[in-house]
C-alpha cells in the first residue's frame, strides 16, 4: 500500500448515519427535562413552605405582627426604604422595556 492509497482510504468521508428517530429522542428528552425543571422550580418552594407552616408558632407570630405593624407603618426609615424599592423596580422595568425595544 502506497502513501497515496492510505491517504485516499483515510480521507473517505465517514458513512452517513441514518437519523432513525435519534433527533426526535433527543428533542423529547430535552423537553421532558425542561418540563421537570420548570415544575420543580415552581412547586418545590411552595411544597417546602407548606411542609414548614404547620410547625410554626402561629399565635406568637400573629401577636408579634400585630405589635409591629403600627410601629412599621409610622417609621420614616421603612417608608424611605419602600420608596427606594418602588423606584428601583420601576427603573428596572423601564430599562428592560428599552432594551427589548432595541
Amino acid at each position, binding site marked *: 500500500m502506497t502513501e497515496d492509497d492510505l491517504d485516499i*482510504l*483515510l*480521507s473517505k468521508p465517514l458513512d452517513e*448515519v441514518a*437519523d432513525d428517530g*435519534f433527533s426526535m429522542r*433527543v428533542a423529547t428528552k*430535552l*423537553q421532558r427535562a425542561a418540563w421537570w425543571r420548570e415544575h420543580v422550580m415552581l412547586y418545590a418552594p411552595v411544597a417546602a413552605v407548606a411542609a414548614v407552616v404547620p410547625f410554626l408558632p402561629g399565635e406568637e407570630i400573629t401577636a408579634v405582627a400585630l405589635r409591629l405593624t403600627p410601629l412599621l407603618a409610622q417609621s420614616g426609615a421603612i417608608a424611605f426604604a419602600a420608596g427606594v424599592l418602588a423606584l428601583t423596580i420601576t427603573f428596572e422595568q423601564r430599562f428592560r422595556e428599552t432594551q427589548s425595544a432595541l
Partner: protein
Amino acid sequence: MSTDVTSEGFGRLVREHQSKVRAFLRRLTRGDAALADDLAQETFFEAHRKLAQYQGRGSFASWLCGIAWSRFLMERRRRREEPLGEIEDTASVDPRPASHARLDLERAMARLSAEERAALTLCYALGHSHGEAAEILDIPLGTVKSHVLRGREKLKAMLES
C-alpha cells in the same frame, strides 16, 4: 450559524449534525453503535446546556466534536477500557455492507489508541486542519501531528501485513 435555544431551533441543529457526531463516536468506540448513540445523546444534551458558551470561534460541528470527545473520555475513564486484547471485531458490530478496504481500515483503526483514531478521523475523514483537531481534542498541535504520524505508520503496517 443559528444557535437558537428553542426546542425547534435546537432540533434543527441536532438533525443537521447527528450523522457526523454519531459517525465520529462510532469510530471512537470501535463500531459500538449503541454506546456511540448514548454518548451522542449526552453530547447534544451538554451542547444544549452550554449553547450560550459557544462563541462561534470554530464551526459548530467542531464544537460538537469537542464535546463528543470529552464525553468519550469520561466514558473511557469510567470503564477503564482499552486493553488491546479485548478489541471486538468491528465488522461484526456494524451490520452495514462495506467494501473490503473499508472493513480492513476499520479493523486496523480499532487497534490504534483512541487519541490516534480521533486525530486521524478528524484530520482525514472529517476534513479538519491539524489546528482545529488540536482545539477539538484539547491537546497541543505538536501532539496532534505526532498522533497522526504514528497512527498512519501503524495503519500502513497493519494494512500491508
